[in-house]
């Protein structure tokens, strides 16, 4: 020690040591900060996942006891009368959604093909319109359905289909465009080089190649349409009896959940849970199915 103290202090060594100390301290501080911050990120992830588990767990726990044969085969009964089901709501949802799909899917995919093949201002404007349409508050779509259909023809399942189709349309347009754009250019060009017309290229090359992507998008759109409640509240009126005719007022699963959940009677709330479980199961099957399909497609492409 004495020798070191006696020797003239080398300023370079001194500075180097100071820097080293500062760096170590800084690193320690930064590592600690990093650990804390990353821990918070993990906590956020946990907070995000918990509600899904909670919602699904509650819906299963409360909805499953409501499921029995009557639940799926009988129509709703008033409070206090046992043996009621949601058959009328299932029929309504199936009919309303099927009609909406039958119109919105072909129209939406055609527009998607148009957007995939076109550049330039009109196409960009339409693309933007479709994107903004996906974000329109769904209650205003209900108002539109009321103005356009209910005012002229009365409450009906068709008015609901119109509103639900309007909700699904932009989703299908954009999903279709994405899928059609994903078709390799070389395939297009090869078909063209063989002398195929554009219509032939679209029919024989673009659409078949993009089909898995298209189906994925359509399934997601259907999942979205199935759960929409607000547009239906303003258009289908509800119907406690079985009704297959879409020109008449109908019941649907989401509107049934909405009205029964506000009832003070435990048995009706129970029916709401059962209907919620049914809706969640169908929607999750569609969403997960679309993902599986998309995953398989990605694997094939590779």
């Amino acid at each position, binding site marked *: 020690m004495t020798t070191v103290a006696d020797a003239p202090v080398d300023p370079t060594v001194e500075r180097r040591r100071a820097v080293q100390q500062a760096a170590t301290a800084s690193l320690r501080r930064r*590592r600690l*900060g*990093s650990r804390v911050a990353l821990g*918070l*990120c*993990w906590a*956020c*992830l946990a907070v*995000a*996942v918990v509600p*899904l588990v909670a*919602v*699904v767990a509650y*819906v299963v726990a409360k909805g499953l006891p409501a499921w029995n044969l009557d639940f799926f085969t009988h129509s709703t009964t008033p409070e206090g009368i046992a043996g009621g089901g949601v058959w009328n709501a299932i029929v309504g949802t199936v009919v309303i959604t099927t009609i909406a799909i039958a119109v919105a899917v072909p*129209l939406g995919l*055609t*527009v998607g*093909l*148009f957007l995939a*093949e076109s550049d330039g201002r*009109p196409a960009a404007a339409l*693309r*933007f*319109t479709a994107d*903004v349409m996906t*974000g329109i*508050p769904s*209650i*205003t779509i*209900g*108002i*539109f359905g*009321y*103005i356009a259909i209910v005012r002229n023809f009365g409450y009906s399942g068709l008015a609901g289909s119109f509103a639900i189709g*309007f909700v699904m*349309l932009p*989703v299908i*347009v954009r999903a279709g465009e*994405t899928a059609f754009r994903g078709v390799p250019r070389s395939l297009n060009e090869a078909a063209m080089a063989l*002398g195929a*017309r*554009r219509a032939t290229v679209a029919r024989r090359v673009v659409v078949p190649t993009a089909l898995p992507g298209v189906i994925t998008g359509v399934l*997601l759109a259907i999942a979205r349409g199935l*759960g*929409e*409640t*607000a547009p239906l*509240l303003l258009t289908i009126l509800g119907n406690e009896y079985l009704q297959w005719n879409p020109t008449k007022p109908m019941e649907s699963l*989401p509107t049934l959940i909405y009205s029964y*959940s*506000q009832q003070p009677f435990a048995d009706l709330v129970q029916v*709401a*849970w059962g209907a919620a479980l049914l809706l*969640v199961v169908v*929607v*999750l099957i*569609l*969403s*997960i199915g679309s*993902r599986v399909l998309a995953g398989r497609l990605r694997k094939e492409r590779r």
Partner: protein
Amino acid sequence: MTVVDTPAAAPRPARRRWSLPDNGYRAVLAVAAAAVAALAVWFLVSMIVQARPAFSTLGFSWIVQKTWDPTHGRYGLLPFILGTFEVTAIAVVLAVPIGLGTALALAYLVPQRARAGLSTTVELLAAIPSVVYGLWGLIVLAPVFRSTVEPFLTSVLGWTGLFDGPDNGVGLLLAGVILFVMILPTMVAISRDVLAVVPNEQVEGAIALGATRWQVLRKVVVPGARSGLLGAFTLATGRALGETVAVALVIGNSPYIAHSLKSPAATIPSLIVNNFGESTGTELAVLFAAGLVLLVIGIAVNSVARWLVWSAAGSDVGAATR
């Protein structure tokens, strides 16, 4: 198909001839596109036309008046506008930090193997119908809020004055929390996509300079994705503004301006959905006009969001939750 028998004569492809299938095909596409555009215009025009009687008989001042009392001809929309923005604010204040943290974790922290599964799980939240969240909020969460959450918050944060009044369960706070859960997947999915677009070289450069993992995220990744993140938040805000049934079920539906987070309140969508069935004449026109106000706010927010996300990361981002 035409046979080209003199290829040498054509240095560049000859101008395509008019043909029925080709032009028919293009015509079908154009007609479909025009139909969608027309639908959008029809929607906008009919909303405006139907809302006009409200403006022509009442002027514009009702939009900012405080009293909603249709039986006496008072149609103040202010409580509902405020309610809409208040629940949205609660949802966004919760969802921005938590959504960003989740997106960072999903994009950079979670091991590769678990990433896809967890991402899917969070995104599936977006697929669950909003009415199911409403049911869950009303039947399960509201009693918990009344018995536990609200008394706790009142005892801890009562001094702020934000938690005055009785514990209702339903009210602004519960509606905001339910909305937060609902917009979180949107926010996470889009944020994760725009975060992933940040160039790898920048991340590696920062690591080479000795940055810790958090510093890389904080100083390189997040700033690099800033405008896309802003777009994601705005998009989620738009979704929150327009949500109807989940909010209508848990907000308590009171046409007065809320004085605390525990107060029952109402939003524009909940106003419309609760009063639609019984309304006629001026009141119905007022509801249409309220819908138009909501639509204008919604379109504005969404346009800004789309523009931000597009300019940050292209137009296909967030396709999973659209």
